[in-house]
């Protein structure tokens, strides 16, 4: 039997015709996502630098609790998220609302989305040579006036990674808000205008509340950027200056694969972040459920 409704509420597992279609995909996902997800726990209780050296019990976890870098890195990631999220959601919403129905809508949205696909190593080169504080193009051009001192000021390092993240992702956010905006029926605006609403009131009292599902979705996606920011960190600041951009993703990388590789400890850190990420997304799922 072929079910006609894809959203059938039946909870029990069911095989339908063409069920074999999921086999290759599930096999690969089991081996390369599900199995590592279990194995990360196993490695986290092992003494495992570059090679397996034996059972470690909870040593790695004990070390984690005593390591000041861990708390600092978590705090830093939180700060990073708190800076990125409002900028990301705010700018994406503003751009989408502003562009809606204008002649330039398509071309501007295409431009804003481009950085998310652009060869990331090339983006890093562009950002580095342009924004480098001592001899970079912008600092040279403005005689040191527009200069982000990310070689020696922690805040500037964070600001650089935040800006890079916004640069990469604001186009995606704009597309999401734009989709939400287009799904608002025109009658709503008509009725509000007939009732004498001003353009500002339309935005505040009609558009923003009706965009809520899109905005919640953006918040979920945007908070993941905090975990994913390690690539930008690796490319631009390598965790510096003085560890002020060592976000959790980068900390795991440094711990497990850096100059003194320690896979066991890296796994324990991964478990901690996984636990935090899942708790966080469980809360978000609840928020999403009430909104969508």
């Amino acid at each position, binding site marked *: 039997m072929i079910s006609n409704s894809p959203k059938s509420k039946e909870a029990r597992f069911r095989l339908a015709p063409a069920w074999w279609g999921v086999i290759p995909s599930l096999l690969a996902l089991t081996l390369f996502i599900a199995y590592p997800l279990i194995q990360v726990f196993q490695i986290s209780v092992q003494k495992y630098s570059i090679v397996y050296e034996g059972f470690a019990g909870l040593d790695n976890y004990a070390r984690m609790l005593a390591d000041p870098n861990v708390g600092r890195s978590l705090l830093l990631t939180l700060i990073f998220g708190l800076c990125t999220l409002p900028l990301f959601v705010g700018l994406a919403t503003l751009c989408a609302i502003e562009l809606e129905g204008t002649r330039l809508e398509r071309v501007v949205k295409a431009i804003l989305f481009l950085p998310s696909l652009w060869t990331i190593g090339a983006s890093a080169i562009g950002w580095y040579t342009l924004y480098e504080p001592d001899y970079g193009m912008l600092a040279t051009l403005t005689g040191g006036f527009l200069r982000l001192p990310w070689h020696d000021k922690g805040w500037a390092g964070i600001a650089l990674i935040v800006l890079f993240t916004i640069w990469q992702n604001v186009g995606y956010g704009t597309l999401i808000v734009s989709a939400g905006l287009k799904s608002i029926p025109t009658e709503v605006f008509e009725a509000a205008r007939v009732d004498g609403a001003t353009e500002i009131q339309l935005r505040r009292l009609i558009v923003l509340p009706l965009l809520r599902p899109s905005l919640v979705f953006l918040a979920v996606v945007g908070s993941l950027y905090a975990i994913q920011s390690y690539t930008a960190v690796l490319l631009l600041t390598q965790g510096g200056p003085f560890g002020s951009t060592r976000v959790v993703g980068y900390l795991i990388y440094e711990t497990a694969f850096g100059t003194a590789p320690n896979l066991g400890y890296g796994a324990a850190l*991964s478990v901690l972040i996984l636990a935090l990420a899942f708790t966080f997304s469980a809360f978000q799922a609840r928020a999403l459920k009430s909104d969508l």
Partner: protein
Amino acid sequence: MIPNLKPETREKVQAGAPPKGTWFGRIVVGLMVVFTLLPIVWLAYSSFIPKEALFKPDVTIPVGFTFQNYLELPFKELIRPLLLSLLLSSIVAGLQVLIALPAAFAIRAGTNVLPLYLFLLSVPAELLLVPLYGLLKDLNLLNNPLALVLPFLASPFTVFLLYGGVVKLPWAYVEAAKLDGATNLQILSKVIAPLLKPEMTAASVLAFAAHWNLVLYPKIVLNDKNWATVQVALTEMLQKDPNNWGALGAAAMLTSLPILVLYALFERRVTRVIEGGLK
């Protein structure tokens, strides 16, 4: 001025329109466009700066135009990684869509594993780097280009994207094909696949870009100069000589060309699928 448009018609169109823009919003959007394009335009410009110009006190004055930077790009350190990445990312993008399509169809037909995919989608892949490294080591796949292919064969995201497309197809087509005696495989290749072309194109472009833009992962699993990918090569160039703007710009522009071409060809489909997939 359009004379034959009656005033009341014009008013009606306006009444249903979204709120008008503000000057503040226009300025912000303008600044965002400048902010977005600045690094890209700068890269394009810097790739044509002659080497001598960099040693003058003020590089801001246009001092010349040269293709020399492009001609001097090293083969072993850049062109080879570029070709390798082109090959691997294309293979991964193709296989990902090929594997995801039957899965999306099976889910739509009623095999209820979608929650499992949604769960796997929510696992941040970066947190599995350590166990994945251990797994590849056990499988003897470290420093083997297969390490850049096998773990990416299946992607919950690609399945989800294609599923979003399959859901929108009128299921009557499938029923009709069934009545005519088509097998599931025939339905998949002759009915679903042609109708799903926009989604499949968008999914391939996104899969290609995602794989193409991996930095950390290839650095870790292919710790061998012979198997450097394009991102590893670019990172190394930047770290080795961050002041050689001309060469860096040329390398950056050349390695961005595949993305530019893909985007020029399929921008509309990609943005449409992202917008449409969320309604």
